[in-house]
């Protein structure tokens, strides 16, 4: 199981290195913000903790707070990235009236 996980870690890292080999500087800020939203994938860990907690209130609480932090990251991150990118994409359409 552990070895399997290590492979997953290795391949995931390689994928990450390859994926953003070339990025125009324009997109560095949105990319950072988008990647940051994805790092909120710890929602999965938080959910797992809550589901497995049973009647353990302390564990439920820890999981729930962790879920809140992660979702703050995820939802805020994706929305703010979208807000930034929306400003880029509406540009070409406006060209005509200048």
């Amino acid at each position: 199981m552990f070895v399997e996980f290590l492979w997953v870690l290795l391949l995931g890292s390689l994928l990450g290195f390859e994926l953003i080999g070339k990025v125009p500087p324009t997109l560095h800020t949105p990319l950072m913000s988008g990647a940051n939203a994805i790092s909120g994938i710890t929602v999965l860990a938080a959910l797992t903790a809550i589901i497995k907690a049973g009647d353990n209130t302390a564990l439920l609480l820890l999981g729930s707070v962790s879920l809140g932090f992660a979702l703050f990251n995820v939802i805020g991150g994706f929305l703010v990235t979208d807000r930034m990118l929306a400003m880029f994409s509406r540009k070409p359409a406006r060209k005509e009236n200048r």
Partner: protein
Amino acid sequence: MSDLLKYSIELVAVLLLALGIKGLSKVRSARGANQVAAIAMALAVLGLLISYAGEPSFNAQAWTWIIGGTAVGGVLGAVMAQRVPMTSMPETVALFNGCGGMSSLLVALAAALYPAALDATGPVALVSIVVSVFVGSITFTGSIVAMAKLQGWLSTPPWMQSKLRHVFNIALAVAALVGAVEMIRNADSGTGLWLLIVSSSLLGIGVTLPIGGADMPVVISLLNSYSGVAAAAAGFVVGSQLLIVAGAMVGAAGLILTQVMCNGMNRSLVSVLFGGALGAGSVAGGGGGEYTNITSCSVEECALTLEAAERVVIVPGYGLAVAQAQHTLREVTRVLESAGIDVAYAIHPVAGRMPGHMNVLLAEADVPYEQLKEMDQINPEFPAADVVLVLGANDVVNPQAKSDPDSPLYGMPVLDVQEARTVFVVKRGMSAGYSGIKNDLFELVNTSMLFGDAKKVLGDLLVELKDLGLGKK
């Protein structure tokens, strides 16, 4: 059956996440890609919920806690994302990032306190917990300090700029290591755990606090990479391959981005992290030479020169972003354009408060995308420009980077603004850029300085231009 479904969903989610990150690196596909990544995330959550459906502990009580956490975190995140001004983007990313780190830390803490409930027993789980706690704590406190510094809530205490801070940080790192070893050797005692949490949290503060404002984006990018690592470690703790892949992808992508930013600033990551506030030190030491031959001019002269120009290039920099002057700038360029003057914007790769930030700010101010020229594209065009207006930029227009092999800036890519017929530099004062290096551009005969806050100068300029009769329809 449930397993098959779970794995299929996870596979699709990973694929979509990868496509999302990939698409985010192209202007045309970026917005769609961000949405794809968001869908992937939703899918991952759905897959997880499905895979645990039917477990006895996945009951109404669990749902209550899930909904509670979701409501609070989700609503706050959504409100924050809508409200925050575009100029505050660096600190916003820092804050979000810190919360991601906090989440990993809390999960690891839960696993450390209640290993049996989360099946987090054995050496692998313990090591993963240690890594997750360590990286999660550093990410959290580091990001919060970064945010506070960018907001101007915190400044660096003098002793943190001295060599003493290395002793302090090394001591903390040793304490964290001791805590980690103690935690693995003696899992049942909480001593190691708390020592690790406290010392790595303080380490996050100690490492981030001495770093200067202009280097902060590099640090945020690095911390973003850390939060990926923390997520991957949390994946080992709870046994989720999806979490490991996604965390590893973000960790790797963040590292690349950090490297790209460092290259743009001609700084090595090591000097950013351990050099401390370089600018502060050199300014105190005299700023690398006095200026002797400065020509300053009035806004009126600048307006007259602009009126006579045919081709104007704007070089926006950090100072423009700090002064939040992008909208005023856009009004000025509208007036110029209406008089038939050709306007372009030269965007240095690291202009603004972080790479690509200037593009976001100018896009927000409705500057047409095709007027934004990247460095390689605009540099051959400077000799044909009548006027270059440098707004709060310094090091990125320093000709020394090309002409003086002894300069610390030598080799850094710069904009060749000195090639233009006339250069106006709008700057708050004669202080050096964050590199602390004297800028020869300011002493050239074709350069005039306009001292003042970028927003105020641009506002005055707008008035003058309108007085000259420009901008009347």
